[in-house]
């Protein structure tokens, strides 16, 4: 659902995409949501900052192609997601798995000065990284970004019923991983 401000911005983009003030307004309204969407995927702040810039350039470059068929928010979110996934592909860390099968998420986050999670938070991120790409995105969109199924459906092109099932399966898998991690932490 678009609020008044978003609806007005959408109108401005459709009438004059070259208006230089549009970018300023996009940044003002969406900057935090765009950043967090990217950060949840690439995990490390430094990478998120680079991808954020790339996303903004891509949005600016493609404003003229926006036809207003989807909400402005989902259009922007899709660009941000694609840029973040592309970044992971470039760095060859689609699954965050090391060649020996161990996950590098822990190393990545431990080396990031902007991650202050405890061991259970690290276990959560590892469990998320083990999910297949699409399930991972659905989980992140719903659990962290609190998007509605309608919005996720628009973003992923998947039916709402399938998304509900996917989110449920993802939560089941992660809960089991967390139980194991919590057990290990408790024993130690």
């Amino acid at each position, binding site marked *: 659902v678009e*609020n008044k401000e978003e609806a007005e911005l959408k109108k401005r983009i459709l009438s004059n995409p070259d208006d230089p003030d549009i970018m300023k307004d996009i940044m003002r309204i969406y*900057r935090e949501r765009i950043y967090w969407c990217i950060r949840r995927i690439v995990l490390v702040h430094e990478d998120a900052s680079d991808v954020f810039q790339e996303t903004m350039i891509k949005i600016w470059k493609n404003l003229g192609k926006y036809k207003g068929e989807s909400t402005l928010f989902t259009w922007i979110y899709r660009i941000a997601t694609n840029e973040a996934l592309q970044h992971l592909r470039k760095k060859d860390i689609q699954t965050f798995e090391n060649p020996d099968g161990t996950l590098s998420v822990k190393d990545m986050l431990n080396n990031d000065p902007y991650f202050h999670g405890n061991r259970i938070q690290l276990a959560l991120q590892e469990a998320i990284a083990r999910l297949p790409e699409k399930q991972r995105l659905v989980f992140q969109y719903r659990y962290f970004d609190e998007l509605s199924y309608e919005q996720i459906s628009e973003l992923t092109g998947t039916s709402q019923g399938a998304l509900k099932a996917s989110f449920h399966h993802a939560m089941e898998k992660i809960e089991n991983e967390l139980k194991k991690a919590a057990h290990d932490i408790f024993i130690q």
Partner: protein
Amino acid sequence: MEELHKNNYGFSLPDDYDFNTSEILNRIEIEKEVSAFPLLNQIRKESKKAFLIPDTFFPEIMELSFLEKITNGKEVRKNAKIFSVSGFFRKAAVIFFAVIFSMLIYYILKDHTKKNINSVYMNGGKDTCLTLACIEKEELVKELFYEISDEEIDNYH
């Protein structure tokens, strides 16, 4: 009194305030879904706080310089697009230019070497260098050249 009641006893709402019921319902739905998984439910709020951002990050990106960087990025890419061609043509162009460049280098070097040989052996290098060091060097080269026997020259192909 009637007027006061109409104005909600002095309380008012911003003009653009919107009761976004679908957003509220969505949040309630998420709470319900996640509550079925106790650990996920318990750590949800903390999970959001685990990731930090430098304090200066958002203020910096709202600065004019950042916006200019983005719009300049568009200009750069627009220009770059003029030369953007498909993979096959790109490879063909690279090979073509490599061949042209190699041929150019070959002819320049060939011509240059020929000139040098002529300069040393035909004109004694006097056209190009007349310093004492050059003349001594040329004499030395000449001596070495005359020391090579005819047999050695014949065997050299």
